[in-house]
């Protein structure tokens, strides 16, 4: 398991193979890799967004993420889990979060990655402040349920 909180922009498509190759226990054993990447949009709640600041609680963030992963490891048969999360100043199109799960079979990989992502959204102590193109800034008050609203 690996949890990384990073201040600099990262490319998940470079981080993923590098991490996979660094975990020797994966070699020949994984049949499924489920990857989720969350990226900063340039819009939210009807407004154009030109940037974001992501605050976190150092120490507790890592503790919570490790507990979430441990919880997933108890529910599914997982070979490796990687979570990378940005903090600080973020621009649209930049990845905010990467959740990658390696397992022998797809069901475990799919289900665990969704579980980890949803738990992260509700338990890991991160807070987003948006900077609006029209001027001003606002704290994001709540996470959505993850689906685009009808209409």
């Amino acid at each position, binding site marked *: 398991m690996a949890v990384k909180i990073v201040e600099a922009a990262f490319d998940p498509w470079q981080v993923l193979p590098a991490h996979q190759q660094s975990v020797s226990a994966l070699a020949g054993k994984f049949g499924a890799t489920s990857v989720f990447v*969350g990226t900063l949009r340039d819009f939210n709640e009807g407004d154009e967004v030109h940037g974001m600041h*992501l*605050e*976190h*609680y150092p*120490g*507790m963030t890592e*503790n919570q993420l490790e507990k979430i992963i441990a919880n997933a490891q108890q529910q599914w048969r997982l070979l490796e889990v990687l979570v990378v*999360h940005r903090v600080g100043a973020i621009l649209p199109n930049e990845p*905010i*979060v990467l959740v990658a799960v390696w397992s022998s079979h797809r069901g475990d990989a799919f289900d665990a990655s969704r579980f980890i*992502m949803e738990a*992260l*959204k*509700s*338990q*890991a*102590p*991160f*807070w*987003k*402040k948006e900077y609006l193109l029209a001027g001003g800034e606002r*704290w*994001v*008050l*709540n*996470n959505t349920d993850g689906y685009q609203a009808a209409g």
Partner: protein
Amino acid sequence: MTITVHYFASLKETLGRSDDELSITDAITVRQVWQLANPEMPLPPNLLAAVNMEYVELDFLVADDDKVAFFPPVTGG
């Protein structure tokens, strides 16, 4: 005993500070920590609390050297 209190995000901005240090004589709950540190401000709705980086309910009893944290709902990911 001494307790450190940390505030985050919008709560930190509203209060205008990120930390408090409290000296208390009797064991008190997390709710009482808030009331002692912020006598002028009612408990915000949806307030989350942690002690030593673990989520707790507001009736959790704090101990010497504990680090209490108050923050709004989390919005990562």
